[in-house]
């Protein structure tokens, strides 16, 4: 820098750096901020937790019609399921839904896959009685509003569920007819999903992730059905 000119032009000399004020400011403000955050977290934490559980339960009840309470189960290393707290998270969880009489309505299972724009996460309900998928609920999606999001709203599409067949083959260790995707109006068999015209990609992705997920989960959960029978959910 042409320091001579610069200093000659203006008499101001850069102030000497003092460490203490800097520490005081940064650390002081930082600690104050930390305290503020903690107190707000303390205050709102339980409410948020409650909200989260409610949200998940809403979804579970949505995909398991008739369920009034739910419980979370974790898949253990030896392919058994053990109860766990209802606010835990992970991809090895299933949720059991129970009706008024504490009878098992079915299981809610989470799955995800690539949709039109980004990953779609859905929760689906499985019924031991009818061996069908009862319903789905979208947990997260960035699909186009009005198109991709019709997997949540399209009546015809939702009509696929409740009767969607995922029964096991006689041997009991694989799904007899993995779920298939067909063009709108082309459905002939109970294991087929009728697509949404205009949102083919998203509906196909939904069918695909359901297939992948059911093929993996259904044989396992059916083998351990009794794990879910005792109603020891938190609520």
């Amino acid at each position: 820098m042409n320091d001579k000119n610069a200093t000659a032009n203006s008499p101001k000399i850069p102030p000497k750096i003092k460490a203490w004020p800097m520490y005081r400011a940064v650390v002081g403000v930082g600690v104050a901020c930390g305290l503020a955050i903690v107190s707000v977290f303390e205050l709102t934490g339980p409410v948020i937790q409650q909200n989260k559980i409610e949200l998940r339960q809403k979804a579970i009840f949505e995909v398991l019609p008739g369920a009034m309470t739910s419980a979370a189960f974790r898949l253990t290393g030896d392919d058994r399921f053990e109860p766990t707290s209802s606010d835990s998270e992970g991809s090895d969880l299933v949720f059991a839904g129970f009706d008024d009489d504490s009878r098992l309505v079915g299981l809610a299972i989470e799955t995800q896959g690539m949709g039109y724009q980004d990953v779609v996460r859905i929760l689906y309900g499985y019924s031991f009685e009818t061996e069908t998928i009862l319903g789905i609920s979208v947990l997260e999606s960035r699909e186009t509003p009005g198109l991709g999001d019709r997997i949540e709203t399209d009546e015809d599409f939702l009509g696929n569920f409740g009767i969607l067949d995922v029964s096991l083959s006689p041997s009991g260790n694989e799904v007899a007819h993995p779920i298939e995707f067909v063009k709108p109006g082309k459905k002939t068999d109970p294991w087929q999903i009728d697509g949404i015209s205009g949102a083919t990609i998203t509906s196909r992705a939904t069918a695909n992730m359901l297939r992948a997920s059911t093929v993996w989960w259904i044989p396992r959960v059916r083998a351990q059905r009794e794990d879910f029978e005792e109603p020891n959910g938190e609520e």
Partner: protein
Amino acid sequence: MVPNNKHALPSGTDEFLKGFWKQNPVFVQVLGMCPVLAVSNTAENALAMGLATSFVLLMSNIVVSSIRGFVPKQVRIVTFILVIATFVTIVDYLIQAISLELHKALGAFISLIVVNCLILGRAEAFASKNGVLRSILDGLGMGVGFTIALLCLGAVREIFGYGSLFGLELFGQHYQKWVVMVLPAGGFFTLAGWLLLFNWYETARARRKTLKEAVA
């Protein structure tokens, strides 16, 4: 250090009102564009985002203007950002407590209020040089201006994109929704459209003014 112009302070009302039009953060200063574009696909989201931002803006203005005396220049940005981040975290938790659905709709943009240029800009440009009272007025004015602008965008995008306003269906169920309006591109176009209107109005006004002067 810097020659100060204490002589020409604008009145409090002006301080408050300037954010509405003359220095509207969105239309004139073109600041804080990210949340403006991202969270304005419905009027409701826009309103929520506007309020959240205004809250943070107001609070950080207050705190910054009260601690401005003891923060050295070298650590100013860090300190201010700490303050802002705190308020954003607080807002984040508050919204989660109020409604998780809303939180989902606003997405990461709540957290991103931290880096909204508008807030740091006001903190640096105004609050760090002015008293608490003025900073409150400024923060409120800017916040309202920001919210108004967000609402302008949100309303247009929701009306076209969903055929509704604040969730109220406007045109019946046969209405053809304009998907593009709720897509990212729609955000750009709507803002561009508003700016066009704004420019057009300003030029028309300027022309009228010169015409009047010419006559006089």
